[in-house]
């Protein structure tokens, strides 16, 4: 049986301490700049905050993984190199990378550092994963959320590294690291700037009939009736019209949360080493409740007990949830 480490999000030092206290085996976080894919306003760590956070986590036996998982645009590679140097100096336990140039730099300059391949690298086949393992010494791959459990089991047999899968949180629809939707509408890039549907371009507009439009850079991403729950205008969660769907429909995906609570035993059995909880942009209270619930569930499964997944299902109560691609190919 694999270890089933619990990998938890930390958008702020307080969230990191919360995650560690709630039983995270490792937390992942990033600096306050474009070097990570959650470069959101008011979020993330200064080098000094990271240093203190690493000390806190290590004192309690938890690891800290630093996300350097965006793609440097030509001419700005030094920002990523400096971030890696800083992370190495502070003593984080691993880097999560996507760009080959960044991976190559770390492999040459900090050969002692452990490398994880970010979901942003979109490595979804054994060959792609082996490419990163053999060239950069990658020790773990974070799999895209597009594979079924039998497919994950098969991949596990064909790769020389550990597997980490997302089990909870925001459900990405596009192949990560291959999406320029935000840049197309706002001029800020997900791959290059670490930005997705930035708050600075978000606007909620109440229409005359009491309905509400959520807009991104002036484009109506969705419109909600007077009693309908409004959502954040993420492009791939919006409602649009096509000729044969004139009333509007979720062209890509509904606003929905991934929850694999029921699949944990199967995932462990398939050889998944680590479970990742999404949500560096979410609050401490989210981190506290999700991490502790999954901590209990994983401990139960490891001890051979039936896990009480009631709590986990309740975490997304009121919000739609899905097992996404993991349970059935029909998702595609």
């Amino acid at each position, binding site marked *: 049986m694999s270890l089933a480490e619990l990998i938890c999000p930390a958008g702020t030092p307080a969230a990191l301490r919360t995650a560690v206290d709630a039983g995270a085996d490792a937390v992942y976080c990033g600096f306050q700049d474009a070097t990570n894919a959650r470069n959101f306003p008011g979020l993330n760590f200064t080098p000094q905050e990271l240093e203190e956070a690493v000390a806190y986590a290590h004192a309690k036996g938890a690891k800290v993984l630093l996300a350097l998982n965006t793609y440097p*645009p030509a001419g700005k*590679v030094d920002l990523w190199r400096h971030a890696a140097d800083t992370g190495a100096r502070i003593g984080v336990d691993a880097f999560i990378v996507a*760009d080959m*140039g960044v991976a190559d730099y770390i492999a040459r300059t900090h050969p002692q550092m452990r490398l994880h391949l970010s979901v942003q690298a979109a490595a979804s086949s054994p060959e792609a994963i082996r490419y990163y393992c053999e060239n950069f010494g990658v020790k773990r791959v974070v799999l895209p959320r597009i594979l079924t459990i039998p497919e994950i089991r098969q991949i596990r047999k064909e790769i020389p590294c550990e597997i980490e899968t997302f089990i909870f949180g925001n459900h990405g629809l*596009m192949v990560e690291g291959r999406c320029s939707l935000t840049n197309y509408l706002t001029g800020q890039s997900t791959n290059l700037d670490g930005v997705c549907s930035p708050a600075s371009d978000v606007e909620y507009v109440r229409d005359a009939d009491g309905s509400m439009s959520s807009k991104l850079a002036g484009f109506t991403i969705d419109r909600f009736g007077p009693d309908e729950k409004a959502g954040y205008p993420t492009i791939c969660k919006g409602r649009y*019209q096509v000729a044969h769907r004139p009333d509007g429909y979720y062209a890509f995906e509904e606003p929905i949360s991934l929850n694999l609570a029921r699949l944990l035993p199967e995932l462990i059995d398939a050889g998944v080493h680590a479970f990742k909880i999404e949500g560096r942009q979410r609050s401490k209270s989210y981190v506290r409740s999700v991490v502790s619930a999954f901590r209990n569930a994983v401990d139960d499964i490891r001890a051979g007990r039936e896990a009480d997944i009631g709590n986990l299902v309740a975490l997304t109560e009121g919000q739609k949830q899905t097992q996404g691609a993991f349970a059935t190919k029909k998702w595609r």
Partner: protein
Amino acid sequence: MTKLTLGPIAYHWSADQRRDFYARVADEAPVDEVYLGEVICSKRAPFQEADLPSIIERLERAGKKVILSSLAEVMLKRERKATEDLSEMESPEIEINNAAGLYARGTRPHRIGPFMNAYNEATIRWMASKGATHVCLPTELPAPSIAVAARMARDLGLGVEVQVFGRASLAVSARCYHARSHGRTKDNCQFVCEEDPDGMPLRTRDEQPILRINGIQTQSEGYLILLQELPQLVADGVSHLRLMPQAVDMVAVAEVYRAVLDQSMSTEAAEARLRQVCADTPFSNGFYHGQAGYRRIAQASLA
């Protein structure tokens, strides 16, 4: 001498349409290189494979260099097999769009496709050290970065390519959005994407055109058009300019770009001509200018 290339057809055009299209390209289009092969959806590939050898032969006979492009998404067994098979080819040249292809190809020569995220000089240097001979830069890369990347690529002896015409690829997914819009799944799609030879237009709920769906791919509503930017691209060392096939008169499009490169047509006249060819489709060049991709930055504001 800057080369004009024709990118791979992103859409599910029928076998007949493809044959006719490439016959005309061979006879009339002033492009130097043509990329063939299915990049978007592995389910479509069988429809084209039978004709591929004759199309290659036809284009090469007309003096065009042919390059075969690999799939952007590789997950299923058939996709892995297709990628591996392509990587075994000695000729024509191949363009790789997924790390699975890089793995299979090893250090044998290959081109790097636009889906490979070759955003910077460090990555380009790495790829060159592994046998890359040519790199197509990602569409969202802004001008200053194109300049730095192109310089590095040229210093290493690589060809450098930038898309200058056609819808920008904005995202790919494991899920088919064409099938979804018709209440089907990818496995049961019945190739409904064939109905939209220039992509399926998505409009916002207040009727504004915004994106195009092409199977698992999401594209820009506007055609990305770099015309007034061509002299700078050439000066920066970009050696190849890519035209993406759209459902318009692509021979006319190629002629316009050739004429601008030959300095026998002004960019104003070129734009006016493209306007005629492309009907009402909006033009955009925001990515190049570091702004929202859909934007159109007018020539006057660049001065």
